């Protein structure tokens, strides 16, 4: 019963809303430690109001239990998660799934500055924002001017 095996079990849990990426890809699984026989997983919420937070915590606990561990999941709010923690692999998976990954660094966006987002299908930079609020808290709705397809953009956060 090693901590590495516990981490591997927790890391493979997919995001319930965006199942193409795992909690490890998103960077929200902060670590798993074995403490007095209990596998303690630390998970950061993505957005304050993300309804998937509880589902993710339950899924991580279930994955640890299935791997033979006694699980405990701790919610860590500090330091706050940022989209900068999404791994390169996670970004590639999002793009392949049709979701444009966040562009640039989370701290670099000025309050009223314009964003440039690449179309996940054709790569064009000729895109426009349709709505800053999309189907989930983490996404905005955009459209490509080149291939004319609408697409989700994982907001830089």
């Amino acid at each position: 019963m090693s901590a590495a095996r516990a981490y591997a079990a927790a890391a493979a849990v997919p995001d319930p809303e965006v199942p193409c990426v795992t909690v490890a890809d998103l960077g929200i699984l902060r670590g798993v430690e074995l403490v007095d026989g209990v596998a303690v997983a630390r998970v950061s919420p993505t957005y304050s109001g993300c309804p998937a937070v509880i589902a993710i915590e339950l899924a991580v606990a279930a994955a640890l239990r299935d791997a033979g561990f006694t699980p405990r999941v701790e919610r860590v709010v500090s330091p706050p998660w940022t989209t900068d923690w999404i791994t390169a692999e996670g970004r590639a998976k999002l793009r392949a799934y049709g979701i444009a990954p966040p562009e640039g660094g989370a701290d670099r966006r000025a309050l009223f500055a314009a964003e440039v987002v690449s179309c996940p299908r054709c790569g064009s930079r000729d895109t426009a924002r349709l709505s800053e609020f999309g189907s989930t808290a983490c996404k905005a709705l955009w459209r490509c001017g080149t291939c004319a397809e609408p697409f989700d953009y994982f907001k830089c956060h």
Partner: protein
Amino acid sequence: MDPRVEILLRLADDALILGHRLSEWCGHAPMLEEDLALPNMALDLIGQATALYTHAGALEGAGRSADDLAFLRVDCQYRNCLLVERPNGDFAHTMLRQFYAAAFMEPFWRAAQASSDPVLAGIAGKAVKEIAYHVRHSAEWVIRLGDGTEDSARRMAAAVDALHPYTGEMFETDTVVAAMVAAGVIPDPATLRPGWDRTVAAVFAEAGLRLPVVTYPYTGGRSGRHGEELGFLLAQMQIMQRTYPGATW
């Protein structure tokens, strides 16, 4: 009450009540994009409130959960400012209320990232990015309606007259605020006033709106003196716990 708990309850109540008001638009917004945007903003605020209540309950040490604090207090125990409990009214009222509140919350949370309370600093780091969207979105609507048709401009001007007297309360100081500012827990809200004034003036200039002169500012929420509208809001929000005490998902 410990001022550390009291200040967290004020921040949490502001977020929860404003979030609940926005949630009342769910399914009623004038177009699909707004039916997504308003509940999205509501979720941000209710999520922030949950984190703040959880922290307040832990600091208080009396075993009260976030749900206990949200659903088992009556109106005079709520500590939100009066602005956030104002009824939705028309779309102009809702968007202006959001703009006024968010233009305060954004610099507040930005400064609170340096809080001496590490949990509050973490909550602030998340909230500041979320509230930035609220400022942008609501400011766009204040401009679009203020600089829009004759009817939309009249409605936005009416919203300004109705809501502006409630804005001063956000910047007020009392012994709780002073103690928490001195302890480095929160930024001094009074110091955020000039920046808020500039943000509002810039948006109003583009929207063609005039700042009203406030002769009678409304205040009292921090000490539990609320408008009757809060009672109706709580009656709806708390009905499950009042009807089935202790019910859980």
